[in-house]
């Protein structure tokens, strides 16, 4: 099969991944039968894996490994989740392939889960740590959207810093029905607990303001 990542992209991704601190494990859930972008998502992980020896990849099937899928709250395929060095899931999830511009939020999630410092000021970190409700953040994106990786990375930072928060990138073109259900016509669109919405690549304070309303 033709490679997804060309020589240039491979080199750049390798460079970025040099910032990894500890090992991470990525689990990719796909399913049998018709599954748009499942094959490519698996292939992407297979091409990224050899670029750093701190990366481990597991492939699971949404139906055959139902318990595992349930454990990580995975219902759609393809979905990637990333575990830290202690195999802990912190709520960082990608539903659909993180290609195009979104490769950047994918790389940033790998670095974060590997233990690389997130650049957020102490006061904001304190606020994030104090979130005591279950928060589900969905970030709808398209692969041609340059403003989207920023929004995904912000949501993932919230998830990383607080166990009550789970943040999922959703690639809207593959999951167009879901996008229509959430009335997405512009990205990034961020939906918090199916109730509050943020439009655009906003600062983390904008997320905290919506989360406070919950």
């Amino acid at each position, binding site marked *: 099969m033709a490679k*997804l*990542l*060309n020589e240039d*992209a491979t080199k*750049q*991704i390798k*460079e*970025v991944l040099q910032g990894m601190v500890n090992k991470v494990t990525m689990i990719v859930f796909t399913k049998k039968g018709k599954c748009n972008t499942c094959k*490519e998502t698996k292939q992407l992980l297979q091409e990224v894996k050899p670029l750093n020896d701190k990366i481990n990849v597991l492939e699971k099937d949404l139906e055959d490994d139902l318990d595992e899928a349930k454990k990580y709250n995975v219902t759609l395929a393809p979905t990637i989740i990333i575990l830290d060095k202690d195999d802990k899931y912190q709520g960082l999830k990608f539903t659909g*392939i993180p*290609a*195009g*511009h979104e*490769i*950047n939020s994918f*790389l940033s999630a790998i670095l974060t889960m590997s233990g690389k410092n997130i*650049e*957020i*000021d*102490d*006061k*904001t970190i304190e606020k994030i740590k104090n979130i005591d409700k279950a928060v589900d953040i969905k970030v709808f994106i*398209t*692969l*041609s*959207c*340059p*403003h*989207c*990786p*920023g929004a995904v*990375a912000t949501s993932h930072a919230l998830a990383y810093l607080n166990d009550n928060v789970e943040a999922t990138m959703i690639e*809207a*073109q593959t999951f*167009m029905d879901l*996008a229509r259900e959430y*009335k*997405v*016509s*512009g*990205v990034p*669109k961020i939906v918090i607990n199916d109730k509050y*919405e943020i*439009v655009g*690549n906003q*600062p*983390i*304070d904008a997320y905290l303001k919506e989360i406070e309303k919950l």
Partner: protein
Amino acid sequence: MFNFNVEKKSNSDIFDQVKKWDLLIIGGGPAGLNAGLYAKRKGLVVGIIAKEIGGQLHNTTTVDNYLGFNMIEGKDLSNTFLDHINQLDVPILSGTNVKAITNIKPDFQIETENGKKLISKTVLMATGGMPRKLGIPGEDKFANKGITYCATCDAPFFKDKEVIVAGGGNSAVEGVLDLVPWAKKITLVHRSQFRADEILLKKLETIDKLTIHLQTQILAILGDELVTGIQVLNKKTNKKHIINTDGLLIEIGTVPNSYLIKDLVKTNQKDEVIVDNNQMTSLLGMFASGDITEQPFKQIIIATAEGAKAALAVNQYLNQNYKGE
């Protein structure tokens, strides 16, 4: 097919180390990147802070008026710029906004959203612009519920749908071209005559699914949960009517991102920053380049040129007029 666009990161640790910068550039679009190149070559201690590297270049599918490139994708041009300045190791702090700038004479303090406080002898504002709104009823209500300001980002949502494009300049015409592979029907609506380049307008002639309404002003955006249509005034007949649609792409230019310095420097009625021949604003040591300035032609090559001019002028100012240490 998936076109992986890896953003090349430069080393940003240096932003915690430098005590005082010669020049901090706010903005990583064409103006800011070129200023970084010129300032570094002069030997200045220079850094760039940008929310999104590339700026509006990423909202542009193809650029065909930048000298030396017949036709290049906006993001490729941005990467080409970035490659060039990375070779010179210009430090870039990306992914964060500057949230405040204070003039601590003769220097400046710059505060970022991620909690950094930086001191610089000079500042270049190259924060460009953001999409201008129509400012009509329904626009806020349907933001992201059928209205978009970014064709490259949102075109897939208009697959097999009817879309209206508002505007008559180059970016509106490019918006139409971006929608052609997706939309079922496209209607371009503009309140006066076309301002777009002749060469772009020619491309519209072959699009069968396109209807054009010039001299037509959009009065309101209509809908229930999502956009269903627009109310327009035909200026030739002076009659109002409704055009049904599933979506609306608004491409009517930009408003300058001058909000950070509005109380510090002189601006015109459009909030554009007024600069002198050396790109210096009314505040000593603060410069501005690109779409943020009152220069009327918002183009990549002009923004880059203004960036270069500012960097050279900063160098001159530091050598001749800077009063601090």
